[in-house]
């Protein structure tokens, strides 16, 4: 029921009359509830001029209504519409529709896309190189070198022989069921992304802890990054960069996973005992001495907890990122969904769980070692 068309229905006179009556009864009908607003403020001419100029496309609701034969719906006050863009547009064609908003956002993004790309493309190029390099290196290294290296890293981080053998068993199992290549690709991506998260996130967290205004500024951004559905990052990134480029998923993973390490660095430094800070001041420490000699070491348990969370979140994101060509176990999960291959999906899911357990246990063991060294 786009426009008032009393003559449109060629049925009995009583039908047309009924329509008109209904329209009058609820103040010119549901299609133009807000007519009176524009009439009252004298914009009717402006509205009609626009209507004559360009016929706007019909909305789905209107199409449906039309196909129902425009039965004069009894519109009661119960269904009084909110003055939304669409409702106002019905009353006045010059008013934008809600679809114009999304179209506007899209158009403005496309308009600045080239300049954004001009800035971000070279800036993020090293990320592509790092990811490509790590993927090549991890895959080129034969398994009988890679597994001992991983075991050595685990031992260095956790100093626990039990954990070393647990990790070796998990990787051996993955290799046994021929998921080694995919798992090692996932590991390579996490390795690069988590490393960059720490390199970028810890300084941001330190800056936040030292300035309240910086904290006020950053927290809403962190909240947004954490709650925005991960798929939403991917859409603008696809427009910005080519889908074949690794940095596309690299950026998505880093944006998603960097939040905990920033938050916990900030929190950790702010939680350092005030008495100890006062002591540091009373000994005439410079700000740098205080930061690296006292605050960061004492915040280390919290920073490590943040790193643990960051690694877990990058693992979660690396699966989603397989939608934009990230290699690894996520590809198999995606295949499982797409082709409804139940077994493939479940087994690769199990592989991800094993990787998650490995990464979590190792970082937690490292965290416990730090904690044990400096409890009060």
């Amino acid at each position, binding site marked *: 029921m786009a426009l008032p068309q009393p003559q449109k229905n060629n049925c009995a006179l009583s039908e047309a009359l009924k329509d008109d009556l209904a329209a009058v009864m609820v103040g010119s009908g549901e299609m133009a509830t807000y007519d009176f607003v524009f009439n009252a403020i004298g914009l009717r001419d402006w509205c009609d001029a626009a209507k004559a100029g360009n016929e706007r496309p019909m909305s789905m609701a209107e199409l449906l209504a039309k196909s129902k034969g425009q039965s004069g719906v009894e519109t009661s006050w119960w269904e009084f519409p909110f003055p939304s863009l669409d409702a106002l547009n019905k009353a006045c064609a010059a008013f934008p529709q809600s679809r114009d908003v999304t179209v506007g956002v899209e158009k403005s993004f496309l308009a600045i896309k080239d300049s954004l790309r001009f800035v971000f493309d070279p800036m993020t190029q090293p990320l592509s190189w790092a990811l490509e390099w790590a993927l090549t290196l991890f895959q080129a290294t034969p398994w009988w070198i890679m597994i001992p290296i991983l075991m050595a890293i685990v031992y260095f981080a956790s100093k626990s022989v039990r954990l070393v053998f647990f990790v070796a068993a998990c990787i051996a199992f993955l290799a046994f069921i021929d998921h080694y290549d995919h798992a090692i690709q996932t590991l390579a991506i996490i390795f690069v992304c988590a490393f960059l998260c720490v390199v970028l996130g810890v300084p941001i967290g330190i800056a936040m802890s030292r300035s309240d205004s910086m904290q006020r500024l950053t927290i809403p951004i962190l909240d947004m990054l954490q709650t925005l559905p991960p798929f939403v990052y991917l859409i603008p990134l696809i427009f910005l960069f080519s889908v074949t480029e690794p940095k596309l998923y690299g950026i998505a993973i880093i944006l998603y996973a960097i939040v905990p390490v920033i938050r916990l660095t900030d929190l950790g430094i702010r939680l350092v005992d005030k008495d100890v800070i006062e002591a540091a001041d009373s000994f005439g420490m410079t700000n740098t001495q205080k930061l690296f000699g006292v605050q960061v070491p004492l915040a280390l348990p919290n920073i490590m907890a943040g790193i643990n969370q960051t690694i877990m979140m990058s693992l979660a994101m690396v699966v989603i990122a397989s939608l934009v060509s990230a290699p690894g176990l996520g590809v198999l999960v995606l295949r499982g969904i797409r082709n409804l291959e139940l077994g493939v999906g479940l087994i690769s899911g199990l592989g991800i769980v094993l990787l998650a357990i490995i990464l979590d246990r190792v970082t937690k063991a490292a965290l416990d070692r730090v904690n044990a060294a*400096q409890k009060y």
Partner: protein
Amino acid sequence: MDKKIKISIHNLYKIFGAEPKAALQHVKNGVGKADLLEQHLHVLGLLDINVDMCEGEITVIMGLSGSGKSTLIRHLNRLIEPTAGEIDVDGEDVLAYDEVRLRQLRRETMSMVFQKFALFPHKTVADNAATLLRVRNVERRDTVAEAHKWLDRVGLHGFGGHYPHQLSGGMQQRVGIARALASNSPIMLMDEAFSALDPLIRTDMQNLLLELQTELNKTIVFITHDLDEALKLADHLVILKDGYIVQQGEPQHILLNPNDPYIEDFVSDINRARVLRVRSIMTPITDGVPADAHGEVDYNDTLESMIAHSGGDTSHSYVVVKDGAPVGVLDMTNLVKALVPRAASGYGPRPDANLREL
């Protein structure tokens, strides 16, 4: 006074709040602490403090919690900035120092010991003790020997490799003291350094401090809320109440001549025989050594040891000797009189004590 004044505080005021300068005018016009808080929403921290601290002496600042003693000690190294006043260290105005000079003061002239120890939990005991040297960018291998020397000195031989949490409270505070001593600074600020320790350990630490002091002769500013501790350590005692100085002077003098009901109430509770010394109650010699004396006693003996010495006989009298030369006569009758405090005031620092009397 023949001693050199090391730290001198003049007309120091501290007001906490949004506009301390404006509130300062009210305080100078005679608005009291309670009124200032109620009418102007500012807290009076310190009110017109004037103290001279002599080189090589222990100045004890005593007061109940909220009396401003911790605020006062933090003004000396400017952990808290004053609202008005002047602080001179070695004749230089500390408040005029810029950041670099202030840092130098904190590194080289003053070191601080804290009530809650404030050790660095992530560093070993030896590294903690070497903190001040490391701050000054002394090479690590040079600091190790120095740190161990001071750890040995405070009775922590062999604990250098431990972490602070592995030590008991008393041992942790020994590390705190070693940390302050290792800086070799002439001034030591001790903020309720022994208050968190249990009584026996506290006595140990007091003895350790006195022992170190006879050897090192530092200028020590010691904060406490415990009068017994204050009387034991102080060369110069400053009693604070609600941010102002009630009385200051030689502790024995304050004990025998309290000038305020608040202090009278304070001193009425302590063991006078243990605190008072012969020199405070003797009669100076005017006309030669009396012939009927029962023996010689030292100038610095406590009355407690005198009572034991005389076997409780109040008819005796003794010649008081300082550095081998007789300086006065002690009559045991005077000693017994001195043990009775002047009548305690009707009101004092603890109103509930007076309620009990009613």
